[in-house]
């Protein structure tokens, strides 16, 4: 055997596609937000502040049609999310449809709303993986953060069902000031639950998290301590659990490669059928996004003005345009640039090269000094607007 034929597992495509004049790659992932309904009220939810209720949601057949198109377009993973996807009564039908298309089907759930019987049905329908959220490593705090009494106990139960079915389990934990001291405990906890993987995600400030930032932001010292403790677990648990660690943005030197680049790898579909590059894309004013109930997914991926707005690097300003990192982090996050400096095409101010970078330290210092208790729980407004769909 020569070295050319040596087995190699290549990196994901993310580092291999040049930024300039990119050929449009097929999307590899779809986040299907089946519903915004959710029994929990986590104050860092990435859903928008204005959410449509049940009567605005797409019916089963519309979702099935979208999944069929997604498979043909090259989507490999479908992440069924929300809201709480188990709030949809047709979840089993949707999972079965995706499995039949050969799509890898991931359920992103709080666990609340599942029963042992309904979960067994999902597994039998072809579900591939479960991502279960936890709010903390201890019940009282976890239930307070999620605003749902008994939620923590329910999650333990759901984790045991996943283990009984033999399905892979990922634990997802969002880190903020109310649980930052127990970030590493949550890794230990996930190992005890038998999870193969854990996402320790320091809060990203969009949606409800941006709204509640002053109640969620840890101090720099808290963030750094938690980060180091989790990294230590990576070595301790090597081969037992895979740790995906999302760094605290506001205490970073360089921005994250948000979504691995705008419109490069994945798409979000809202409960109403709107197709977006990410959760927060609609917070950027003036962008036109198309709806999968009106146009084909292939047409949307290739030609939707909202998707094309920040592809490649023509849109970039300095210091991004001439930056050697532009193929690494794509200038950071467009929604964050919009939210913090009022210009979606600006360098993400998380970047130490941004002329507005000082703002980040000011916000982090100010917000981390606030009281933790007063956040606004996520909820769908009772007086809902009729969605245009």
């Amino acid at each position, binding site marked *: *055997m020569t070295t050319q*034929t040596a087995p190699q597992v290549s990196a*994901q495509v993310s580092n291999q596609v040049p930024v300039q004049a990119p050929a449009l790659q097929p999307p590899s992932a779809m986040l299907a937000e089946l519903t915004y309904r959710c029994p929990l009220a986590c104050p860092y939810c990435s859903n928008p502040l204005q959410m449509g209720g049940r009567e605005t949601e797409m019916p089963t057949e519309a979702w099935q049609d979208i999944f069929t198109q997604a498979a043909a377009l090259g989507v490999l993973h479908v992440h069924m999310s929300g809201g709480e996807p188990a709030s949809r009564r047709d979840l089993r039908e949707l999972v079965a449809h995706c499995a039949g298309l050969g799509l890898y089907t991931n359920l992103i759930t709080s666990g609340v709303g599942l029963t042992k019987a309904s979960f067994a049905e999902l597994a039998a329908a072809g579900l*591939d993986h479960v991502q279960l959220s936890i709010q903390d490593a201890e019940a009282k705090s976890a239930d307070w953060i999620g605003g749902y009494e008994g939620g923590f106990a329910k999650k333990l139960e759901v984790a045991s069902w996943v283990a009984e079915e033999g399905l892979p389990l990922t634990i997802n934990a969002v880190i903020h000031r109310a649980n930052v001291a127990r970030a590493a405990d949550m890794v230990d906890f996930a190992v005890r639950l038998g999870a193969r993987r854990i996402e320790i995600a320091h809060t990203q400030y969009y949606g409800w998290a941006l709204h509640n930032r002053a109640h969620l932001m840890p101090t720099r010292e808290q963030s750094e301590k938690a980060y180091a403790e989790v990294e230590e677990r990576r070595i301790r648990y090597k081969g037992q659990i*895979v740790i995906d660690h999302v760094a605290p943005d506001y205490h970073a030197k360089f921005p994250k490669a948000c979504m691995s680049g705008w419109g490069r790898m994945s798409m979000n579909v809202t409960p109403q059928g709107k197709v977006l590059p990410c959760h927060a894309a609609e917070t950027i004013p003036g962008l036109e996004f198309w709806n999968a109930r009106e146009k084909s997914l292939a047409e949307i991926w290739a030609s939707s003005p909202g998707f094309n707005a920040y592809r490649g690097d023509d849109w970039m300003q300095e210091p991004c345009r001439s930056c050697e990192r532009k193929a690494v982090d794509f200038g950071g996050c467009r929604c964050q640039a919009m939210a913090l400096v009022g210009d979606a095409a600006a360098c993400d101010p998380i970047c130490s090269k941004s002329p507005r970078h000082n703002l980040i330290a000011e916000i982090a210092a100010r917000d981390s000094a606030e009281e933790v208790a007063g956040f606004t729980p996520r909820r769908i407004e009772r007086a809902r607007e009729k969605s245009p769909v």
Partner: protein
Amino acid sequence: MTVEELAPESRPHLLRGVKLKNDQVRKTWVLLAPERYLRLNAISVDILQRCDGDAALSTIVDDLAEKYSADRTLIERDVRSLLNSLLEKRMLGL
């Protein structure tokens, strides 16, 4: 829980939720796993298609050495390299 180690008599298999797929859109084989995928070259596919939980590592190596008319030591090194990386990613069972 102890971390498993490859031995000649190990019978490697992809864990549930880890799947080989011949992707017709990208014209390549991929390994689908929880929230990630890996593009595979032809020989990685050859190795993983033999990891069925029945065949022992030593048998897989013999088989590939014969197929590629190649030195067994080199083949074993490459097979172990791939399988160890998948063990570390929690994608493989023994």
